[in-house]
């Protein structure tokens, strides 16, 4: 903690600061001491906690599903394989309902998004002080455990999706077709600058909205948990339990929405107008 007896705003500020390692103009490559130093580092910094937790959860996802996939057979499934098949079938159905082309990328991509985002969101249900406290005892001052409350994480994923949108748009329609789609509609060739502005904003809005929706939902949820944690301990359960139960819905829903919108955007990229 920044100080031994933090005020409410210090406590909140502390909980919303990532563990940042980066190039500080004064101290060189080092861990940031506080939000001030972290923002002074600019772009040449990395959120160690976001990366660590997200990669760990990603490995958990890959490991779990790989173990399930290894035992895959056409007989009667059981245990883990059942769960893996359930998820695969659910994603497969969602993809087939929306996307009518043929692609070996979209379904695994959707599965990865669904499970990975869900796992990252799930960290929100861990009591807000538990893991930071443990790390504090180990000498690490800042620890934000929910990667999806870091806009870098959600934006990283949505940029990945954005690159795929552009890749498929060009692959399916050709560069000419893609440029034409951006400039020749909705108002025909006499309004090219206006069309381009409109379509360009529409295109850029896809990854931005994708990232900010997930980030905003989880950030707000986390903030409310932190606010509840500021209250006297005897009223906390009264607020945190209903909020946590409601939040179960949110974390699943947000993972699902991220996945569905990815599928929709990619199927739009596959379609000719």
């Amino acid at each position: 903690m920044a100080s031994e007896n933090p005020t409410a705003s210090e406590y909140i500020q502390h909980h919303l600061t990532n563990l940042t390692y980066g190039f500080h103009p004064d101290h060189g490559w080092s861990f940031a001491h506080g939000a001030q130093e972290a923002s002074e580092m600019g772009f040449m910094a990395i959120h160690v906690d976001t990366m660590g937790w997200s990669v760990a959860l990603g490995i958990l996802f890959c490991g779990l599903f790989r173990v399930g996939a290894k035992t895959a057979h056409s007989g009667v499934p059981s245990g883990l394989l059942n769960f893996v098949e359930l998820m695969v079938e659910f994603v497969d159905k969602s993809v087939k309902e929306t996307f009518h082309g043929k692609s070996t990328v979209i379904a695994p991509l959707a599965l990865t998004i669904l499970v990975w985002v869900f796992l990252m969101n799930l960290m929100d249900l861990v009591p807000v002080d538990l893991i930071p406290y443990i790390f504090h005892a180990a000498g690490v001052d800042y620890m934000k455990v929910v990667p999806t409350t870091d806009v870098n994480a959600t934006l990283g994923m949505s940029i990945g999706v954005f690159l795929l949108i552009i890749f498929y748009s060009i692959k399916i329609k050709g560069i000419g077709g893609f440029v034409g789609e951006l400039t020749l509609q909705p108002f025909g060739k006499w309004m090219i600058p206006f069309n381009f502005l409109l379509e360009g904003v529409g295109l850029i809005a896809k990854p931005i909205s994708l990232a900010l929706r997930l980030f905003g939902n989880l950030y707000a949820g986390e903030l409310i948990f932190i606010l509840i944690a500021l209250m006297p301990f005897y009223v906390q359960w009264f607020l945190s339990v209903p909020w946590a139960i409601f939040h179960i819905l949110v974390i699943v829903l947000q993972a699902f929405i991220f996945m569905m919108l990815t599928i929709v955007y990619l199927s739009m990229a596959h379609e000719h107008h």
Partner: protein
Amino acid sequence: MNINLTLIGQLIAFTIFVLFCMKYVWPPVSEALAERQKKIAEGLDAADKAARDLETAKAKIEVELGSARAQATDLLEQANKRSSQIVNEAQGKAREEAEKIMASAQAQMAQEVAQAREILRADVAKLAISGAERVLNASVDAAAHKKLLTELAEEL
């Protein structure tokens, strides 16, 4: 909120996880699912076929059973006829036999009665003679009166 290298890091991690999922998770699972789907379809087909087979087998059984039943009634009828025939024959024979036995018995009886009558007749003749002797107090020449006595005996 600081946008920084984490963005790139997340992009790379995301790509790696998607590639891993694409290569090592999705294909085996979806393959297994497709195979199971095929297996289930085959199983259902086989069940349908088995049900149809059962249906035909049942029909066949019905036919066989009908013919067997007809055969059985035939046999039974024949047996009945034969048995009544046998009984009739046996009755006829028995009646004949009984008649024969009765006839022979009657013949024997008549013979015996005749014999007894003969003996009685002789006895009566003797008794009559001895009675007559006593009455006459004299011996009667049996030879002389033989004719008379025989006539007497005949009359008895």
